């Protein structure tokens, strides 16, 4: 059966092959952690402000800073760094595994033992 070019196209929402599916899966996890933290912290501060009173936000002090300053100004940039580190560790392992798989295939093929 002939396959049209559009059938072969990959995309972020239609990854193809084990490697790309793995990469896209980890990207989705990272982006989810990124989005939830950004949106979540702001809604947290917003609801504290509108539902209770500014006094609560004044009293909630963390590391010497009002909680909303600490969450957005200190923790979020740190969280972004952690997300980047996690992504890189995963990508490094993924690359090593892919390289080892590729080498095994080549060695077998030279000996003529592969399928």
């Amino acid at each position: 059966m002939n396959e049209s070019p559009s059938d072969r196209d990959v995309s972020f929402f239609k990854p193809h092959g084990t490697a790309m599916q793995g990469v896209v899966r980890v990207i989705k996890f990272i982006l989810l952690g990124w989005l939830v933290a950004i949106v979540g912290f702001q809604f947290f501060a917003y609801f504290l402000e509108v539902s209770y009173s500014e006094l609560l936000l004044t009293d909630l002090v963390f590391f010497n800073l009002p909680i909303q300053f600490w969450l957005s100004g200190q923790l979020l940039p740190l969280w972004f760094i952690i997300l980047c580190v996690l992504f890189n560790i995963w990508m490094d392992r993924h690359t090593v595994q892919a390289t080892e798989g590729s080498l095994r295939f080549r060695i077998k093929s030279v000996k003529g033992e592969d399928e």
Partner: protein
Amino acid sequence: MAYGMIQLVPLAIVAGIFILFIISGLRNRSNQSTEYGFSGSYTGRVGIGAGIASNWMSAASFLGLAGVFYLKGYFAMAYVVGWTGGYVLLLVLMATQIRRFGKFTAPDFVGFRYESESARTIAALISITISVIYCVAQFRGIALLVSWLFGIDYIPAVVVGTSLVVSHIVVSGAMGVARNQKLQYFVLIITFILPLMLLTRKLGYFWVLPQFGYGAAIGELQQQFGFNWSEPFATTSLFEWFALCFTLMFGTAGLPHVLSRFYMVPGIRDARWGVVWGLFFIALIYWSAPAYGVLARLFEARNGLALNTGGADAADMIVLSGAGLGGAPLWAVGLLAAGGMSAAFSTSTGLLMSGSASFSFDIYPRLIRKNASERDKVYAAKAFFLLLAALVMVLAFRPWGMIAEIAAFAFALAGNTIFPAFLLGIWWPRANATGVICGMLTGLAISLAPLLIGTAFPLVLQLFPLTSSAFIGAPLVMIIMILTSLMTAPPSAAIRHFVSRDVHECPEN
């Protein structure tokens, strides 16, 4: 802070820092290559990170951010989150893939991926426009510093500042001075953190980590002067905060001079880990910047001064004036001036050079002189460089906002145009030339709409604020790109095959 007189000590420190850069650059010149204005020496991932950070740090980060904190309080956190969170997008969605395309500039990428000279030309024009807007923010910072250092008015200071930038580029180019980006980052971080430590120590706060120590100033402002920081969304809405924050993130992932960093790194793993180090170095500055805004308010309150009597100019200079009010020694204020000047100079130098290179490679031989020789292109680049500098100077005479706001407009334009073009170009092989051309033009229209029709149609201003238009704009542009691409012929099988097999390492079908 004293105006109207020459600041000899700070001036000497600024001159000393620049002489240090020139000497270091002359020593390194034999080890470097210069291409497209993005040269740099790379020694390991930390060095790559320092390069990314020093390339990123501009007057907006060094001077502008503290000014927004000083004026708008918690709203300025959108800048901190936006300018750091964008690197996550850049790393996971683009950094690895961009390198696999093997193209050196944003127009190169667009031209190759979308197989269209028209798309390439539009991308080049947009890149130049982004450079000009971003440069206006730098020139404003330079002019404010020159105005203080030499004791002259703002408009003459813009002219003097422009002359200094142009002379710096010409002299550096003639002498073959290379940029030592690690040294530059080291200078930036020292000149920013050291005066802050001095100020917090003088106040009796926790000065070892002034990034946390300034919290005591917030408490003091509240208890003794009745200044309330605990209503984060009292004057702005959640939508405004998110719109600015996501616009800056999309813009970070779409700024041509940021994207270009990944082409110049030797390996993909180094590029990825370089982003982490770069983000850490950038975060060091952003963890500290709010402190200057808060401390300046405290010093003003203690001195019985009203908030921001000097307007946007005073707010943009709050890092220096706050340090002066707080009793920091003149040499510490000089360090801040040197850091701000160095950040603004390096960014404007890179942007002017990349803008003129883009003109001479992407526009001049394609639109103006078809059979231009290499020599013609070099002359065109030099002439366009002077033209760009003059244009930026004129725009800087009457800037449309504070330093950070002008920079945010450049981010909005990048987020509405280059970011969708790259994102869909990498992740959706079906995206075609018609789609990207329609998308980039729509993005351009969305970015300029608040300036052109914002007064007549207030809804435009609400949905697409000048500094924050990419929050709705970028998704809208992507939808337009997808619909237009689906309605027109797909790109060639070769490029779709390239994206699937070479960029995403998908197996053959």
